[in-house]
């Protein structure tokens, strides 16, 4: 078959951590820590994970090979800057030399923040932005538990500036962890709401990375495969939470979406979602789910052939449809999916009032994620999208 399209020729690079995927890979975590020279592990997690059986198994495996650790679990969803600083103090006090993050995006991001602070010895707020710190973080191993955030393979860390009521985005190649251990079994302890939020998060990662202005062929590969996997397994997974095939496929989808957005970055869904999460402490996945259809509406004209490709992957009938019809089909699909995974909220039901919109837009317009949105947004554009999402 002859290729009927041109590939991207501009320079691009692709980075990813070493990762292991598969059932019971969680037991490998201890070995990786040892290999990376752990003397004392800073074990970041949260209160939900602490109660899981598999977390205890990880601890046991650490003990078995004689690795010392200190557990830091005071991490909330949308992790806060002071939590990072508290973790850093413990890291230094306990003379740790390696980070093991077991949990979702919040845990991994907070652990990354601790890593930045202990290596660069300043408040985490000083490192907001792209490439803002000079010393690399300590060795870091992740056991992700959500199949959504994929911070375990990305160069991003999102920390809530608690006083500023907005989320700081910290981006650096040095924030890519050393090892990610993806064990689908750990996903089985998630409830359906969390699973739904995670899945929507992964889908928004994949779509935003694919249409990103920094996209590359290898990102595209991962992004489209993630979209395909989500389309085929998301709803089914929610109806059978203990099915390891569905869980594993969603985990793979999240990994692919993570690799794609880590390298191609994101767009307005995330800039606006960060603003919402920071100001109102809302669930990131849920915000994404609400915003995604409206951002597609805003962006479509700037990357119509890409959105058309997404629609094709989603098996939407695009053959005889013009752009406007494809756009509407895609938006409908997303709205429909949101309903199917039982996220029935809008911004209004989440407590956003219209008088907050200017503030939310002001915060969102400063987010680095806008940089790769296919249609460069103005503050006014973001206000419009927020209004539409009400």
């Amino acid at each position, binding site marked *: 078959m002859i290729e009927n399209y041109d590939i991207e020729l501009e320079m691009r690079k692709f980075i990813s951590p070493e990762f292991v995927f598969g059932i019971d890979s969680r037991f490998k975590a201890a070995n990786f820590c040892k290999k990376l*020279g752990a003397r004392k592990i800073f074990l970041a997690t949260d209160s939900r994970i602490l109660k899981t059986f598999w977390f205890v198994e990880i601890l046991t495996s650490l003990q078995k090979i004689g690795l010392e650790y200190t557990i830091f679990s005071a991490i909330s969803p949308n992790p806060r800057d002071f939590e990072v600083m508290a973790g850093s103090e413990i890291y230094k006090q306990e003379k740790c030399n390696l980070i093991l993050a077991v949990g979702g995006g919040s845990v991994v991001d907070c652990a990354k923040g601790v890593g930045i602070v202990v290596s660069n010895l300043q408040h985490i707020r000083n490192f907001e932005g792209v*490439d803002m710190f000079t010393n*690399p973080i300590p060795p870091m191993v992740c056991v992700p538990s959500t199949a959504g955030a994929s911070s375990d393979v990305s160069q991003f860390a999102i920390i809530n500036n608690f006083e500023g009521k907005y989320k700081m985005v910290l981006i650096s190649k040095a924030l890519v962890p050393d090892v990610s251990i993806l064990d689908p079994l750990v996903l089985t302890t998630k409830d359906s709401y969390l699973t739904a939020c995670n899945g929507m998060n992964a889908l928004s990662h994949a779509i935003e990375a694919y249409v990103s202005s920094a996209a590359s062929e290898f990102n595209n590969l991962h992004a489209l495969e993630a979209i395909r996997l989500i389309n085929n397994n998301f709803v089914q997974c929610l109806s059978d939470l203990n099915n390891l095939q569905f869980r594993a496929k969603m985990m793979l989808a999240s990994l692919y979406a993570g690799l794609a957005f880590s390298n191609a970055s994101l767009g307005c869904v995330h800039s606006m979602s960060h603003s919402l999460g920071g100001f109102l402490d809302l669930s990131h996945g849920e915000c994404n789910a609400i915003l995604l259809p409206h951002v597609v509406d805003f962006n479509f004209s700037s990357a119509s052939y890409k959105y058309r490709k997404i629609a094709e992957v989603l098996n939407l009938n695009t053959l005889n449809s013009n752009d406007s019809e494809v756009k509407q089909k895609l938006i409908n699909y997303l709205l429909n999916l949101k309903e199917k995974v039982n996220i029935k909220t809008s911004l209004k039901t989440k407590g956003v009032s219209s008088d907050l919109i200017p503030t939310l837009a002001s915060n969102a*317009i400063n987010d680095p994620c806008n*940089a790769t949105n296919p249609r460069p947004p103005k503050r006014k554009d973001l206000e419009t999208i927020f209004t539409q999402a009400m």
Partner: protein
Amino acid sequence: MEENWEKYKQKIMGLGDESFKKSYYPELQTKITELESVNSNLQTIFDSTSDGIVIHDKFGKILSINRKASEMLNINKEKVHDFSIADFFSKDINFTELYTIWEDVLKGKTFSIESAINQHDTQKKFFVHLAMNRAFWYGKDVIVAILSDFTQRIKYENELIIAKSKAEESDRLKTEFLRNISHEIRTPMNGIIGFANLVNRPDISEKDRGNFISIILKSGNRLMRIIDDILEISKLGAKQVDVNETDVNIFDLLTELFSIYLEKAQERGIELLLKKETGYKKCRIYTDRQKLTRIISNLLENAIRFTHEGYVEIGCGLKNNLVEIYIKDTGIGVELDKQKIIFERFSQAEKGLTRKIGGLGLGLAIARESALLLGGDIRLESEADEGSTFFVILPYKPVISDYQIEAMKQVEVAKKEKYTILVVEDEDENYFYIETLFKIKLKHPYQILHVENGLEAVEICKVNPEIDFVLMDLKMPILDGYEAAEKIKEIRPNLPIIAQSAYASKDNKAHAAIAGCNDFIAKPISLETFSKIIEKYLAE
């Protein structure tokens, strides 16, 4: 923010130089910091050591040097790369050998050699102990050479070698001197002891006895001269000789010596000439008569001794504001390379000479050192077998004021039928000798009173107004001569007191004068001196 999206995008894509994936860890960072500090400490040590350190690549090209080496080799640290080890060795070094050593060091052997090194540009030569070791430096096999400068040590060594050979020479001369001295002393002693044994035998004739006694006297005098020489040289060596400058007419002195040595010269069948040069009349200067007499006698005696035919000529003149006395002979001469040595102690130009001619080899040394003491020198012009001319050079210190002025007060003894003479002397032998001298020299009737210390002398002077003349020893028990003289002068200011002492230094004379003594004679008292005193005070 809105305007910076492109910049952000580029940064996120991470193709810039400053974008890094985590490739090393904080612990490594710590280690690197530690290593950097170790490295900086090593650099400090490298630059603080007192030895030079030079790091070469395996071809000998210099890669780095420390501060000391930079000083030693006189090359700037930044320019080391222009140099190679071979640039600093002197051209005469065995480069093949050096190459072999170099190869061995590269194989891992340690070498240490001593070599001369030439400084860059200045070519200043110095000596180094060079220790070479192989090392690994910034990924290269290198040779580290440590240079310890021992130029100073070599200098000290050379100085020590010179000092040692001087000491050995001096030791050799002293041994020779001792051998000489025993020979020199033994000869007159044989004469004295041998003939002293014979002189009392009843079976010898008066004529023979007379001969024997004159031999004993001659031998005694010779012995005395030897002892004088030895004492003189040791005093000169210890810088204990006083210069006693008086008004001396050099020409008169030469005339005097001429008449003394004329006979001796005639005995040896050579002529002795005294030459009057222009300006000789000016030759009245302040100098030490005794020392000058000795210097010239010595030179004259030598000249006569070493001249077998021809003449010896003496004369004096004034040249360049210096008094120049010369003693010229037609004798054996002195070879050029010996001309310096002969003025050193215990040396004669030829070792064999001693046996033939005799003498201690001290004469010229005493003469020269005395001349130096007088502020002058002795110079020699000579060729072997062509005769020699010794020049005694003295500073010209002309006598301008009235030279008759004497420190001591002049008194006269009133004429009497019979003089009463007081001799104050604690040594019996000395008193006996003085008594004998009076017997020989004083024809006028006299009587001698003898006391043994100063106190007795004062007492007797108090009670006996008849005393006309006092001969006072200065060093005595109970009360010494100076105090005694002072006390006597209080009672009898006009009584002539003649001090006599073995310590005829200027100090002693001055002290005696202050005490009121009217004259000073040195012990042992010569018959001549004694005659003069008798003539001055007690003659008819």
